[in-house]
């Protein structure tokens, strides 16, 4: 068994909205392994995004424990979490979140400017097949192209983990496939641990493991013996 990159124990997250308490995570125990591509599946509100945010150091857990290797994320200060994100984590969001006033290259440079051991922005964009659109602004790119730039931005720092929240959620099937292709390549070529959230069940076939969420808890964990290439996925 490869070593665990993330390890959670009885992880709980509750939100208080108005007078009511909502349990977004209700005691999650999970291990995620190095170089693994994991898909988190589940309906809206099942807790997968909350988990991803906590794993990525974007949010604090209410109780329980999250370990990133030997680092206990639950006891880290905001400053330390910032450091953690900067050094180890790449994010890809459903709505790309590119800075509209920066070109594709500059969006990637935002990361390479502050990361300790980045690849060149051009190289990152080449990996996602965006070399020919390097000086375009987000408004001049299609949704799939924007998402590929977002992935290039996420991998440019050579992160240990790549966290993707609904990366194809806003895309049609064919551009979605290009994006998934890019994620798979990063995972295989660089050995980056990838965690992909989706509520599109078709995507699970490309994963090493599939974790299903229901009501803030893990419903099931399945290992794919045979994975298929993204190009074979249709939805």
């Amino acid at each position, binding site marked *: 068994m490869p070593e665990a990159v993330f390890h959670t124990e009885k992880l709980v997250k509750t939100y208080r909205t108005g007078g009511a308490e909502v349990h977004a995570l209700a005691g999650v125990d999970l291990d995620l392994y190095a170089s693994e591509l994991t898909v988190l599946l589940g309906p809206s509100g099942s807790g997968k995004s909350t988990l991803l945010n906590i794993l990525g150091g*974007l949010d604090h857990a209410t109780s329980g424990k999250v370990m990133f290797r030997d680092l206990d994320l639950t006891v880290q200060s905001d400053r330390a979490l910032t*450091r953690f*994100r900067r050094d180890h984590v790449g994010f890809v969001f459903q709505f790309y979140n590119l800075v509209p*006033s920066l070109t594709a290259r500059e969006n990637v*440079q935002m990361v390479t400017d502050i990361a300790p051991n980045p690849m060149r922005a051009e190289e990152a964009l080449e990996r996602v097949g965006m070399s020919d659109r390097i000086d375009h602004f987000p408004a001049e790119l299609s949704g799939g192209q924007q998402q590929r730039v977002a992935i290039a931005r996420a991998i440019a720092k050579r992160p240990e983990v790549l966290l993707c929240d609904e990366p194809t959620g806003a895309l049609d099937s064919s551009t979605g496939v290009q994006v998934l292709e890019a994620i798979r390549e990063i995972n295989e070529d660089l050995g980056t641990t990838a965690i992909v959230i989706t509520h599109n069940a078709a995507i699970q076939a490309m994963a090493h493991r599939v974790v299903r969420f229901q009501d803030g808890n893990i419903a099931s964990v399945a290992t794919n013996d045979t994975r298929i290439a993204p190009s074979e996925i249709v939805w």
Partner: protein
Amino acid sequence: MHALDKKLLRDFRRLWGQSLAIALVLACGVMILLTAFGMYRALDDTLAAFYERNEFADVWAMTEKAPRPLLSEISALPGVQTAEARVQEYLMLDLPGRVKSATGLALSLPDTGALPTLNVPLLRAGRLPDPQASDEVMVNEPFAEANGFEIGDTFEALMSGQKRRLTITGTALSPEFVYAIGPGTLMPDDESFGILWMPQAMLASAFDMSGAFNSVTLSLSRGAQEDQVIEALDTLLEPYGGTGAHGRDEQASNAFVTTEIKQLKNMATILPPVFFGISAFLVNMVIGRIIALERAEIGLLKALGYTDLHIAAHYVLLAGLTAVLGVVIGWVTGGLSARWMAGEYAQYFKFPYLIFNVSYDAYAISGFLALLTAAVGALRSAMGAAALPPAVAMSPPAPPRFKRSLLDRALSALRLSQPSMMIWRSLFRWPLRAAFSAIGLSLAVAIMISVGFFSYSINSIADIAFNQSNREDIVLLFTKERSLSALEDVRALPGVMEVEGELFTPVTLRNGPLEKQLSITTRGAGATLARSINETGRVVEIDGPGLLITTRVAEVLRLAPGDPVEVEFMSGRRETYTLTVAGVTEQFFGLGAFMTREAMSHLTRSAPQISVANVTLDPKEDDAFNRAIKDTPLISGAVRVTDMKASFDATVEENISIMNGLFSVVAILITVGLTYNSARIQLSERARELASLRILGFSNWEVSYILIGEIMLIAVLAQPLGWLIGYGLGHLMAASFASDLYTIPMVLPPAAYATASVVVLGTALASVLLVRQRIDRLDLVSVMKTRE
């Protein structure tokens, strides 16, 4: 360049309209600070240099006639460094090609042929008169220029009843006459008032002053006590008709110039903070909104590993760029306007040169203040942005919580349309923002009112001074005090219709430790030409033996009608009496006190005397009258009230319209800064809402109404507050301008308020309409699709 820095520059470029609006307000603060400071510095430095290089005296004293040997006693007084005696006389002048008479102040030059040691005239052209000559004169440069005199030109002067033709040998400027004001006038008039430097021998023989002097000037040694020197000098001069020595503070030219400098200094400290305050609010409002719009980007930056400091700095820098733009505009315009204004002042005041040192500290201070203002304005929002947890930042903000309140029930009861309801609700949901906008706009109104009142005040001053108090056409100045029979000589001059006499007597008024030197004006009972007017515009008659004083004297000496006041006469028998304050009268120029001729005569146990004659003229006989007085030995000068009013109007009106124009621009910039930014922010906050209304079938203008309505509602609500602040600020300005030279009454008719409101509301409307155009261009589909 880092990617974040590129974002900064591009954001700045995208926001140029809003940034510029803020930058201009900041630039106003910087510019006014630089201009006022630069002018103040330039005047102060120039004055100091001129005084030092040309040995401006410290103490002045006049006597009727003192023997020359007394000078060595004066020189020996402790604290006196240099003492210089001279002969000083007012002369009636007859200038070639000029029908009206002019007045000259003749000052004697030393017999040695050298320049005086104190108040040294700076030779501008030609040479000094020959000490032995009996027809040579050096005049002050402005007088020569105003009358088109060249070296070698001649004019006539009436000296002790004898007309003498004088040849101009040179022109000069003197530290004593930087602001050269003739006897009995309010403003400098270089055409009709000149300074004449003449050889001692010539002047002394004409006025029976051989071996004597009637004017003495002193410079003091370091550490000398001025008041002790003045007291000792007064004691020495008393037997010779000394009228009381005074220091630089009461030297007319110096008093005017230093008052002006003081006002510039006040302006440099009072006004800029207003602009910086408004800018800070604007920056806060705009950066706050940008941050609200960029929540997701902030979340992203945090997700990417940027620190709180990075993010806060990013937005503070965005404000910083705006500040830099404002500072640059302010520095350039302020630097230019300081230099230009200083040049104007140097001409207005007669300086031989202008010392304009660039005050680097003023640049540094104004730049620092502007940057600080922007930083303070941005910091709170930026810190707030940095403090957002990234996961929260990336999710859309919760919709503002509108709750039903008592107010809503009241609004519902009014049965307002839905758009009107939206306007009111939004106002009450963000009361702080609305309040700050209103305060900013009210300051724009207030600034206009606080300056606008000057023109009304000046009109009122001119009306009281020239139409009500001084209704004579001409004031004739006698060479010395005369008996009432002199009035008959004046009445005999061609064209004279009415004649009244007045006597000016120098005195010191005392109330306990408070004292003031001034002249008591003595008039015949029931005088109709020169009269005293009270604050309600009524004529004040003096009843009995009391003393009527002006409001400024009443304030300074803390006197009220019925109070006793000690009066020490500075001429004649120099007796001291205690009189009763009979009443208070309004007078905006100088200090004044009034008595009836009967009371004065009774008090001094002497026959009534007069020193001036007030005359009304038949306009047809004007030329004949002017020719006649030039040959009348008993007259040393003539002051034309109508000319004075004209020159007063011209000088003051010009200054005031420049100032009104400047402050209107300032008020407009503030209004644009506030309303344009508010409208842009409203539009961006409400784009979805407004687009929804458009989709529901509201017309462009119905939707625009919501945008225009809220901002104009705030603007209208700001008006009463603006009027109130303007009234207060105006009082403050009037008070800061008040001096012994003049006071400015607070006259604020409704028109002053209306003008300010019309300008501000009009500007606000124009600014909102500019933003409103964007509603026409709203892309309904894309607005609705954009993620909140």
